[in-house]
């Protein structure tokens, strides 16, 4: 049963025609002012080229887009974005789920353990980036020196894959806390009776997890998947700006970092707006795919 069928079954008859609209009005106004209006502005800006101060403005049609799609670097950044976003979402979910399952089983000192795991969420993304940046500094970072001791030639200033690993770790690290909280709450909602019944039937802990707990967690997992992908697509330019700045080469220049960098640092409003339109479109398509195909597998 999916959400829509559920809503139909549970629908209640409201005698007032206007009241429901009045009740959703604040939400609509907020959406309009903070989401649709800026989106419309970005859309409009994408067809203009103007100087930083807005003193002159020229309609250039699709020039900004043509320029983008003639730039081989832009295709690279799309690829970088996909690798980065899926790595962040996957590792963030996997590690958080593992930690949550472990934390759920802890009996003594449970609260301390859970609190400590939530802490990293309070750290600002850029700061988290700098923290990992220092730990992995090829000349001074303890982790890098330790890796070098084991024969791994760690130098993210030159090695693009290593730089990508580093930004993925920085971006994932703080998101783990967030995922952890939701997973823990999800786990606690799994009825004990089901698990106990399974154990009486002789199911191993691993089997119990895969056949009972994991499917029952699927609404949480799906919600977190969407949230994490959106986070990785949009909220991570701070991490990248504070660490690699997109380098070495363009190996960590994600699309949103380019939007930020070209718009706010390069002051090229037209291209930045065109890029954000492309990004909006891409994430829109992805969200539709997620809701249409992945959500079908979710048990509510």
């Amino acid at each position, binding site marked *: 049963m999916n959400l829509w069928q559920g809503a139909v079954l549970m629908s209640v008859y409201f005698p007032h025609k206007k009241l429901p609209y009045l009740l959703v009005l604040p939400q609509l106004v907020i959406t309009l002012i903070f989401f649709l209006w*800026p989106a419309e*502005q970005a859309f409009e800006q994408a067809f203009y*080229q*103007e*100087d*930083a*101060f*807005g*003193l*002159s403005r*020229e309609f250039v049609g699709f020039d900004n887009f043509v*320029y983008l799609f003639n730039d081989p*670097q832009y295709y690279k950044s799309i690829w970088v974005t996909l690798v980065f976003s899926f790595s962040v979402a996957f590792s963030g979910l996997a590690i958080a789920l593992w930690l949550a399952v472990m934390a759920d089983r802890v009996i003594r000192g449970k609260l301390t353990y859970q609190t400590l795991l939530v802490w990293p969420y309070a750290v600002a993304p850029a700061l988290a980036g700098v923290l990992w940046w220092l730990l992995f*500094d*090829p*000349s*001074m970072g303890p982790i890098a020196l330790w890796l070098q001791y084991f024969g791994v030639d760690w130098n993210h*200033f*030159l*090695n*693009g894959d290593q730089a990508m690993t580093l930004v993925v770790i920085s971006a994932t690290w703080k998101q783990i806390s967030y995922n952890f909280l939701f997973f823990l709450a999800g786990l606690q909602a799994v009825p004990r009776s089901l698990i106990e019944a399974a154990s009486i039937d002789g199911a191993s802990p691993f089997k119990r997890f895969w056949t009972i707990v994991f499917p029952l967690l699927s609404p949480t997992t799906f919600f977190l998947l969407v949230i994490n992908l959106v986070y990785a697509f949009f909220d991570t330019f701070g991490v990248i700006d504070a660490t*690699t*700045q*997109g*380098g*070495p*080469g*363009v190996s960590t220049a994600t699309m949103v970092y380019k939007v930020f*960098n*070209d*718009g*706010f*640092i*390069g*002051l*090229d409003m*037209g*291209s930045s707006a065109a890029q954000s339109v492309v990004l909006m479109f891409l994430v829109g398509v992805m969200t539709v795919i997620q809701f249409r195909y992945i959500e079908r597998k979710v048990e509510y």
Partner: protein
Amino acid sequence: MYKLKLASAVIGFSIASSGFAATDIEWWHAMGGANGEKVNEIAKAFNDSQDAYTVKPVYKGNYTETMTSAIAAFRAKKQPHIVQVFEVGTASMMSAKGAIYPVYELMRESGQSFDQRGFLSAVTGYYSDQEGNMLSMPFNSSTPVLYYNKDLFAKAGIKTPPTTWEEMESVSQKLLDNGVKCGFTTAWQSWVQLENFSARQNIPFASEANGFGGLDTKLTFNGPLQVAHIEKMSEWQQNGIFSYGGRRSDSAPKFYSQECAMFMNSSAGYAGIKKNAKFDFGVSQLPYQGSAISEPKNTIIGGASLWVLQGHKKEEYKGVASFLSFLSRAEVQADWHQFSGYLPITRAAYDLTKGQGFYAQNVGTETGVLQMTSGTPTANSKGLRLGNFVQIRDIINEELEGVWAGQKSAQAALDEAVKRGNVLLRKFERANK
């Protein structure tokens, strides 16, 4: 996000500018930490010196944040009187003719006595128009120098720091032979290894006098000397003479940890090195290509200058003018120079600092000044005036990293950087016609 910044700028401004008898002058700057406190001190000294105007310094974050918020504020007609803009933003500011109030005009129209000849031409050249009129007031300027580890030099039996790139190679080799892991590293690779390299060798970085001559400028840093230099560095990257340590000044730890014996970085990095280096270090001038030239030209500055924005009352501009005059006083300048490590911008401030014995007590602090003031700046060493330059530097970073990683030849990388950079220059030309 843009809207948000705009809104916060507006709110910040309206709160800051209410209810004072004296005329308020808003000054947005990007000086955090100790330098920020010094900025407040300077403003206070000016405010105490007269009653007509109150200068209010507002810290707006780093250079890009400060510039972006000033631009957002200008679009909302809530701009500050003075804003500090970094050197690579110069072309954007200059082209915004309706937005800026050139300093020379401001001084003339406010009746301030203002003599441009007192300023160091290597500094003001960067911020002047073709006729030599100062458009903005230099505030904090720096130039790249060579820092070297005296302890490692002594261990390897080297007496003097290298002055040419040829010596860089031989000295580094000697260091490597004596167990040092790397000869040198560099911060700000585009600024030091291409922009300043070109200036020092007196070869153009871009056509039309490095962009001073017009918006139709094209990049030319893929010339034979620059290519040879980058090629050499790529070879050095492989054999340990050079070791790349990242963008901006991320390479500093290589010098602090004594992995690299030499480090090319901004003269304003002096205080940081003094704090972090657990060894005796020296400061020397940036090397030049001995095989190509016998005498190097001056280096180009980095840092920031103060731009005056349009749209305020005449009376307020009088205050701005008198504050800028105050700023360029020798004692104010000398104090700022000695405190922050930025270069002095007037001849008088330099002489005063020298007279106070500051350079004798802090060996190495004079190197940048000497290097920057040696000889008369040429069209190639006056500075750079290129639009979209922040992004062009990104492109250069990307391409050079391909060279250091051994994926690209120097020629191919610089050709590609020039090609990609020129596209951005044409975009800027089109947007600022």
